[in-house]
């Protein structure tokens, strides 16, 4: 059972193909519209470009879990309106995994 099963959203194939995803580093928020199957690398690169950050200096977290560039909204079970957090990369520390 997925989290959405209890209240199934009406299946609208056309609308469901794209998601609006918020990317934030705690100060800046950037909204992206991407396909469910698009690799998040595209969005991560775009955010870094726009905010002048190096991709190696940050890590992206969804729900506390580190996001890989090859992940897509589909693989992470993301929904429209979900948020990706951008944190400073750090050495030695690790985010707790669930």
């Amino acid at each position, binding site marked *: *059972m*997925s989290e959405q*099963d*209890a209240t199934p959203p009406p299946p609208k194939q056309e609308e469901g193909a794209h998601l609006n995803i918020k990317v934030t580093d705690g100060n800046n928020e950037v909204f992206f519209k991407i396909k469910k199957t698009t690799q998040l690398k595209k969005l991560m690169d775009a955010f870094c470009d726009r905010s002048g950050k190096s991709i190696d200096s940050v890590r992206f977290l969804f*729900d506390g879990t580190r996001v890989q560039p090859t992940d897509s909204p589909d693989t992470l079970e993301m929904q429209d*309106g979900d*948020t990706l957090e951008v944190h400073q990369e750090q050495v030695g520390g690790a*985010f*707790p995994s*669930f």
Partner: protein
Amino acid sequence: MNLCISRLQEERKQWRRDHPFGFVAKPVKNEKGVDIMKWSCVVPGKEKTAWEGAILKVEISFPEVSYKAPKMCFPIICWILLSSSGRFVPPLFHPNVYPSGTICLSILNEDEAWKPAITVKQILLGIQDLLDEPNADSPAQAEAYNLFKRDREAYDRRIRQIVRDHLG
């Protein structure tokens, strides 16, 4: 669907839409799927305090007393777990955390300030506030309480040490 479950599903929906930066709150997944009654959460230590850089894993269990009004089905038990290893750490070094790991916080206490309207977000923000602002009138463990009362500077140094060694 009972009130407690629908309430928690709504909370989760709101959380996905918007939540404070660095915090995590999500129902756990088990072999049967998502268990809405148990949440895994992360509370970050506040910047510019001794807790800066800390990542605290908090587990919230909502008791399954679902036949009563929301008030009855929503008292909360929280445990603070050590983040990096996921190990249960009784107790977190804090005046208001019991040796069992349970947090002593008025908004979580049915006999005190608990109200059905309190959200998961408020609870987690409350825990973050409590980290750096212990309540010396309600000690839950001796070690942290004694040092906090005796020498605030030494206490803060100890916290920074713990954050550096275990919670970063």
